[in-house]
């Protein structure tokens, strides 16, 4: 096993860090307070090739391996989890789905524009009654000649507000179908943007589909293969959310360590107090413990392997560690950790979102449990 980043990855890491420090950090706090969608940051990210991070050069992508892409997400998340989430929804959920399952025409139509950041992607899967039970879709895809009519409501559509392209999963006659639907299609209405606890610079929208007509050729993948498209997308996004949690947690440790080294109470910096040292040590261990599952999952993707359970494991761990570490590091900062003038409160709120965004911890646990019992000839029901 080689745990080292190669030379190229090390170079990328520096480049990602520079971008995060220069372009993301200065805006992060204000963007969160204003619930701004970082459109100019995304534009600059596109100029760096980040919006086509893992796409091939043929589609103007940066051709990053998945490990490098995940390094990018972790690095961005250190400064702003929102930027990482918006980027991951675009790349992991939509762009890579088109790359994996699209016809040549679909790839040519969409991928260069997505690499350039001209079109932002959004996956529409969740519904009011299909949250954890994502298969209980009520949005219908009804064939009508050489068109399909989409009807239904989608919620929690990440990037909805700024997306030019929606990847919509609906119930067709042969099972779930996935469709690529441009924003300006009649009958597609981008609705309410959810005000959220954290990730306040990501747009989560409700999407209405009212007799929305698309060509049969808008379908991505085969008939009834909506989840053949959506499940791997979801797995990639789970890895991305774990990487986001890793960045959040790691950055919060650094923030708190700096505070503890400077804050003098009872005559010494609080870093000299054993309880604080315990907190910092535990946090450090947890961050380190998260690193391997995240990067192993990314590596598996690069090997062309299935990442279903490794992705769930990384996400399950990542959400919990992001939550626990940001919580503890906020405590180290005391009253200052609670003030929105300092970055910790935002990291705390952002981290809490990861327990649900990208699949609830409970759903990932279910899938992991299925794996644990897989060799025992027993089928686990959710």
């Amino acid at each position, binding site marked *: 096993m080689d745990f080292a980043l190669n030379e190229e990855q090390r170079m990328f890491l520096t480049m990602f860090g520079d971008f995060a420090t220069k372009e993301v950090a200065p805006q992060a706090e204000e963007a969160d307070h204003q619930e701004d969608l970082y459109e100019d940051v995304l534009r600059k990210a596109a100029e760096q090739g980040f919006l086509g991070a893992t796409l091939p050069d043929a589609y103007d992508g940066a051709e990053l391996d998945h490990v490098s892409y995940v390094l990018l997400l972790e690095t961005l998340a250190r400064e702003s989890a929102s930027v990482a989430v918006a980027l991951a929804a675009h790349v992991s959920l939509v762009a890579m789905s088109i790359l994996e399952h699209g016809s040549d025409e679909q790839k040519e139509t969409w991928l260069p524009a997505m690499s350039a950041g001209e079109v932002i992607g959004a996956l529409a899967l969740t519904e009011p009654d299909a*949250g954890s*039970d994502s298969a209980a879709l009520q949005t219908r895809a009804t064939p009508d000649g050489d068109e399909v009519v989409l009807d239904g409501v989608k919620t929690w559509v990440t990037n909805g507000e700024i997306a030019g392209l929606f990847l919509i999963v609906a119930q067709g006659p042969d099972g779930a179908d996935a469709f690529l639907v441009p924003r300006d299609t009649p009958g597609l209405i981008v609705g309410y943007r959810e005000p959220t606890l954290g990730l306040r610079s990501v747009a989560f929208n409700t999407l209405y589909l009212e007799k929305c007509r698309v060509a049969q050729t808008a379908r991505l993948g085969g008939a009834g293969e909506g989840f053949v498209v959506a499940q791997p997308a979801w797995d990639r996004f789970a890895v991305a959310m774990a990487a986001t949690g890793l960045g959040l947690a790691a950055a919060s440790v650094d923030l708190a360590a700096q505070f503890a080294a400077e804050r003098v109470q*009872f005559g010494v910096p609080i870093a000299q107090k054993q309880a604080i040292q315990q907190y910092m040590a535990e946090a450090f261990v947890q961050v380190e413990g998260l690193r391997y599952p995240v990067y192993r999952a990314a590596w598996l993707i690069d090997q062309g392997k299935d990442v279903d359970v490794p992705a769930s494991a990384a996400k399950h761990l990542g959400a919990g560690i992001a939550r626990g570490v940001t919580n503890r590091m906020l405590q180290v900062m005391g009253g200052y950790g*609670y003030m929105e*003038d300092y970055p910790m409160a935002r990291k705390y709120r952002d981290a*809490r979102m990861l327990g649900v965004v990208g699949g609830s911890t409970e759903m990932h646990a279910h899938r992991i449990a299925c794996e644990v019992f897989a060799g025992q000839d027993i089928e686990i029901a959710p």
Partner: protein
Amino acid sequence: MDFTFAPEHVALRRMIREFAQAEVVPLAMEIDREHRVPQETMRKLGEMGLLGVCFPQEYGGMGAGEIGYCILMEELGRVCTSTTTNVGAHIGIGAMVIYLDGNEEQKKRYLTPLARGEKIAAFGLTEPNAGSDAAAIRTRAVREGDSWILDGGKVFITNGGYADIITVMAVTDPALGARGGVTAFIVETDWEGFQVAREEDKMGIRGTSTAELVFEELRVPQENVLGKVGEGFVSFMKSLDMGRLTLGAACLGGAQASLEWAVRWAGTRKQFGAELAHKQSIQWMIANVATEVEALRSLVYRVGWMVDMGQPFTQLAAMCKLYGSEVASRAVDTALQIHGGLGLSRDFPLELAFRDARIAEIFEGTNEVQRIVIASNIFRERGVRIRP
């Protein structure tokens, strides 16, 4: 042992619950969005006598004791942490220190209007260099004739932006430090030299005032010295102890409410063909929270009883605050998780409760300070003196 509440306490609880539903619930999300103190709630609580719930009737209070005060905080804590914070700073630390250490004249002049809710109190201790290390305060009070001149400032003062009366701790003898060198002063906020410098922008309890105060040649008459010169620290610590118990009661209310939210949703929301309540992971979460809430309830009301019986309670009050704040955090976190996406939305009151709950592990003495207090008390009995 009799674990039942007295009839007057049962009646008090019912009255406050009705008030909370009618007057506090409708404002909870609005005050968070608008970042404002619900003055109307404080006024109504005052009119009902609740801002003096634990003070004797001779000083304008309701005479319901510490148990009565716990009940008030618990019932308000079910619905709005900003309100319990405003009330707690007023009764539990602001007015309380005047009740504990004021002379008769001070109680008539200050405690009575505070108990009646005609004026609002705050407690001025914390400074930029004196958070957990409260003894490190630097605000200075220098004797000049029959007055004291205060110079310095305070930060993170709850109610600081709108209180009428603030009990301020200042250094009267720098050489002596906390033991003998600190004095408590009753300050009226409309006096020359008192200024509210700014309000903090907080993650939660946004329906409260958390103010930075500046004192510039603030003249305080001698008769406003609270307790004895040099003994301010002792007064304040006693008051903080009582505040810790009732903060525990507020956390109990919050935790109970979180549990009720979780149970309601788990009994309603269907996924995979059945209510979430049928899923063992959900059942385990709820059973764990419910057990902790019961344990907290027993702790809080037992300590409230001890206070009313005149028994020592410093260590147990610290436990109420420590355990209460952590139980409340776990309870609201669980409720949030059970609600999935809904729990993360600002259109629904849970994420507000989540942001609000977090402060309880930090203010009124961080949970680290509480652990130091508890451990110190334990080891002092064995003759080992622990330093923070």
